[in-house]
């Protein structure tokens, strides 16, 4: 179902005149869709500070408490977190912010590394981005299972899946995905599956520099694209045979 058509140009269309990455399937007027995190809001200032303490304390509310104190605010500031997102615990807010923050980093990485666009082949770009995103996990790898257990709590699953979809959508978009029918969905679904399984694989990975994880990603991505190619070939073959059959019947019909 995946269309792995050759790219029309090596430099993808997403590099637009103003230098930013704007999604053409969103309105060009909504430039804010690239601002995953509003850096000026007090929430993100506190959370950004809290990220520094994750490697030490894990994904716990102590990180947020400590961040508030480091920023010289009083504990009363914590009220805005209980108020802002109804029914979401502080810990899960921290996990969600962490995911968004890494997604923003991925965007910054793509924007500031022109060499990324020189990687030929959508498949290779996808692999590269997923590996890059997994690298961002390295500093907190010991605490990551805590975040994942937060993400799979049934109450949280809708928000977790949304964030996972956003990530795979970003990866597909930066890699210049050209799919336009059902393959649009199946590709993103496939990328989400690959990312989630690679992250779980990474938790158990003891190889130096997470080399096994990297090859795991390569293998999974290439499988997905092979599957897509196989499906496309099959579809083309079926279509060709169906048309030939129709033509054959037609010509026999006319001969009487």
């Amino acid at each position: 179902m995946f269309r792995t058509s050759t790219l029309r140009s090596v430099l993808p269309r997403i590099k637009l005149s103003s230098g930013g990455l704007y999604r053409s399937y969103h309105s060009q007027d909504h430039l804010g869709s690239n601002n995953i995190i509003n850096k000026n809001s007090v929430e993100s200032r506190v959370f950004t500070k809290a990220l520094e303490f994750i490697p030490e304390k894990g994904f716990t509310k102590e990180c947020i408490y400590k961040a508030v104190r480091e920023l010289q605010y009083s504990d009363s500031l914590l009220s805005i977190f209980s108020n802002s997102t109804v029914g979401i615990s502080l810990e899960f807010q921290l996990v969600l912010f962490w995911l968004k923050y890494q997604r923003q980093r991925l965007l910054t990485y793509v924007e500031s590394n022109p060499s990324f666009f020189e990687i030929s082949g959508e498949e290779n770009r996808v692999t590269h981005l997923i590996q890059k995103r997994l690298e961002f996990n390295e500093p907190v790898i010991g605490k990551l299972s805590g975040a994942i257990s937060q993400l799979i709590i049934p109450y949280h699953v809708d928000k977790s899946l949304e964030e996972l979809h956003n990530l795979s959508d970003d990866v597909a978009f930066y890699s210049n995905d050209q799919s336009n029918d059902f393959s649009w969905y199946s590709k993103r679904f496939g990328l989400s599956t690959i990312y989630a399984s690679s992250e779980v694989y990474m938790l158990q990975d003891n190889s130096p520099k997470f080399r096994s994880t990297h090859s795991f990603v390569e293998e999974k991505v290439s499988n997905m694209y092979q599957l897509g190619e196989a499906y496309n070939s099959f579809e083309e073959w079926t279509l060709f045979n169906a048309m030939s059959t129709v033509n054959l019947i037609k010509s026999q019909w006319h001969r009487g």
Partner: protein
Amino acid sequence: MLPHLLSGVKTRGIRGIKHLGLRCLSNNSNHDTTHFGFKTVDKNDKEKLVKGVFSSVASKYDLMNDTMSFGVHRLWKHHFINRLDAGMRPGASRPLDFLDVAGGTGDIAFGLLDHAETKYNDRLSTMTVADINSDMLTEGEARFQNTRWNDGSDRVKFMVQNGETLEQIPDNSKDVYTIAFGIRNFTDIQAGLDQAYRVLRPGGIFACLEFSHVDNPLINYAYQAYSFSMLPLMGQLIANDRDSYQYLVESIRNFPPQEEFKGMIEKAGFFVPDNGYENLTFGVAAIHIGVKL
């Protein structure tokens, strides 16, 4: 029992619904007048008029609240306290200083202290209850005598203070400023918000629970019909004081809607997080939050 100052308030009953235009009339004020319900009064008089209302309802305040809101006001206050989730977290360097303005009967103040103690084991944070009306404050102090905070530790203070000036509260001295169903009665709401900003420390939070406006026209119709016809009647039957409750209903109508009030909080200098307010019961009441940075 009715203060003579109130005698100028005309009783409108259900006809009040048809008097929507009066809001514009009273908004059309010069600098020397303000609302007192739907009536436009001299600014210098409103304070006295409001004082009259609350002095006359003080003793039956809770009974009336329960009857009129079917007990829902307790749920709102409970939710308000839980949402704020205030309290000294373990490992904090200093306790928090709460200020509950217009908190005469003390239900928010005691609720906040109770929450901080049960959830965060915070037995050090202090509470100042300020109210312009000494009769309401006396109610609160009487209740305080029987609470567990009356242990000689001097954590809870009561003081008669005008919320628009707060002259006995120093700058940057409080962490949490709460006001529940009080700011509506201020002569100059903006001045009250400015004072809140003044007394809070950086990182301090302003939280306001107040009647607000219902968006849904159908529910609003029912709500207006109930409040304009039933409330003054109940006031008459239970507290023998129709005019005070007439004032209550009219002052609710005159209070700015959610977005406008949010704008006023921002104007005072506060940062308003996310969408800034939370509607309770379709918007009959709303919680507004602001942070001093």
